[in-house]
């Protein structure tokens, strides 16, 4: 299997982890071609993940914006409330086939942690989740969900106390118990084979979109929009369309307070090539290669890197990446809630905001599909706080 997307990707990890990665790669190679595995996974997608997720015509939004027709891919209606479950089912099934009994993972918004804890409970695996201290605070609901599901949640207060530090700590823990533990990476990041493997488990999103939009509209969309943290929901919906060159593939990064401030997480817009977390990709870093603290109100996008395949798609011009800031994301969060009665994850709200702009610019004969990667229940407290509402006082 090719370890790289152009120059990006690779396997930059401590020696202690190398054999484990090789073992995973071999297992993935074997099982992803194994018809029983493929069938079992398809069944889990159906019965556990609640797939296929609907492709929803956002008629009110479309009418209100007056431009392109907007469809929402409803990953928010998956079990546990986001696209993360697809990848978790794939990797957990693999881990089980590999005979592993313990799972560790990192989580940002907590959606990956919840999905992992959920499937670990179902598969009777021990589960240990690492989450940045700051994220533990802003996503308290998800922390207790994980604990309820039987997972151990470790709050990571080193570094900036966010997603990247959770990854660091999860890697550290993995080296300590490498022999019986599977690291279940939550996005298309990290060393090979994760970026490819996670993509393979997420590409169902785009495959479903193709069938659904063909059925509803009799044709493919003109643009596909998704938010990008590590990039798994974006790759998931892009992948099946990469060869349909006429379709614009658009990834939206978190601009936090704005890309002209120090407080953002807009990796493609403002980053440069580097090597971190096991991969060569784009990162927000200083002139010496120190990884920069990043900021977004969205815990799931608050990451200084991006999956190597996105770095590649960007470098060859196949996909475009734009920043959307906190204020705009909150605006879209409220807009979609009031317009369609759908509360999006604050991560997904970034993609919604860009779609609002894009739809207005495109003709009524055009079609945009947005990946609604998750639901926003986990974010209402934080948005309330952002807007100055004190919920505890209510």
């Amino acid at each position: 299997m090719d370890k790289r997307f152009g120059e990006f990707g690779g396997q930059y990890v401590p020696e202690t982890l190398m054999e484990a990665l090789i073992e995973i790669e071999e297992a993935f190679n074997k099982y992803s071609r194994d018809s029983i595995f493929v069938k079992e996974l398809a069944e889990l997608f159906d019965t556990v993940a609640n797939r296929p997720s609907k492709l929803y015509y956002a008629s009110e939004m479309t009418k209100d914006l007056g431009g392109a027709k907007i469809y929402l891919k409803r990953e928010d209606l998956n079990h546990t409330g986001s696209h993360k479950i697809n990848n978790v089912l794939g990797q957990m099934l693999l881990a089980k086939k590999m005979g592993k009994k313990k799972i560790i993972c990192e989580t940002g918004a907590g959606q990956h942690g919840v999905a992992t804890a959920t499937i670990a409970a179902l598969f009777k695996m021990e589960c240990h989740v690492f989450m940045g201290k700051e994220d533990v605070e802003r996503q308290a609901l998800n922390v207790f969900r994980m604990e309820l599901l039987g997972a151990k949640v470790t709050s990571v207060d080193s570094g900036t106390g966010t997603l990247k530090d959770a990854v660091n700590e999860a890697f550290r823990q993995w080296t300590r118990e490498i022999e019986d533990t599977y690291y279940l990476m939550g996005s298309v990041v990290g060393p090979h084979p994760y970026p490819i493997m996670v993509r393979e488990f997420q590409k169902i999103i785009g495959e479903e979109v193709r069938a659904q939009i063909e059925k509803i509209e009799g044709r493919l969309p003109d643009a596909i929009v998704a938010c990008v943290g590590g990039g798994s929901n974006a790759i998931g919906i892009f992948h099946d369309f990469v060869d349909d060159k006429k379709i614009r593939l658009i990834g939206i990064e978190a601009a936090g307070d704005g890309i002209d401030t120090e407080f953002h997480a807009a990796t493609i817009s403002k980053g440069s090539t580097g090597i971190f977390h096991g991969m060569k990709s784009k990162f927000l870093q200083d002139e010496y290669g120190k990884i920069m603290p990043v900021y977004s109100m969205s815990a799931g996008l608050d990451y200084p890197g991006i999956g190597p395949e996105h770095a590649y798609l960007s470098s060859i011009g196949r996909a475009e990446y734009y920043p959307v800031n906190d204020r705009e994301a909150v605006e879209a969060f409220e807009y979609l809630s009031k317009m369609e009665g759908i509360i999006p994850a604050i991560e997904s709200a970034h993609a919604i905001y860009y779609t609002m702009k894009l739809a207005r610019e495109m003709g009524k004969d055009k079609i945009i599909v947005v990946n609604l990667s998750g639901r926003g229940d986990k974010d209402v407290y934080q948005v309330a706080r952002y807007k100055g509402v004190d919920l505890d006082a209510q």
Partner: protein
Amino acid sequence: MHNRIEKKFKELKDNNQKALITFLTAGDPDIDTSYDVVEQMINNGIDILEIGIPFSDPLAEGPTIEKASYRALASHTTTDDVFSLVKRIRENYDLPIILMLYVNLIYKYGIENFMKKCSEVGVDGLIVPDLPFEEVEEVKELAHDVNLLIINLVAPTTKSVRLKKIINKSEGFIYCVSSLGVTGERKNITTNLSDFYDRLRTETDLPLALGFGLSNKEQIDRLKGNWDGYIVGSAIVNIIALYGKEAPTHVGNFIKSLKD
């Protein structure tokens, strides 16, 4: 030939001695103190010096060295500051100097530039914890251009097939990770170290240095029999954490206790 590292190991072997390799993070708590610590180490008889360049995300380190990294960054230590430190040491001492750093620091500096600078200031080797054997080529070629060695690591988990490959391409010495996990002191090392040593020794005549978790003389004495060198890191960093600017003499005393 020959790089200072290779020469040092040969010299020690000839005298039937083991290498004492000691680590500190440059700039912890500041560059001047680091220089003084280094002098104390050298004056108390270390054989090889390993200097860590601070990094924002030292994911192969345990909390001890991780915090040292943060302290060094807090005093604004950059890669160039570390080069200056090496230069100053080299002006006065001839022992082998190895830099320990994360690959992104090399990459972002520009690999070729980085190597040139190393050579200018007198660095002899590099340990890059997140640059495994599989990814090392690009860096290694440019390192060799300036007579710089890249030290490979092997772990107890490293399987035979890869172990052979790694050893075949190793140079200077092999950094042998004593047990699973990140850097840091350990009360007990559970790996069967003599098996580990034997596995390695059947494959190579290169010097084998043991690292990760060595914290005191008794522990080292117990292991001394086989290995060609031992690397002491966290135990020193802990002293620096405790004494800050006053650390140099304390580190000196500690090194003396190891040598006694």
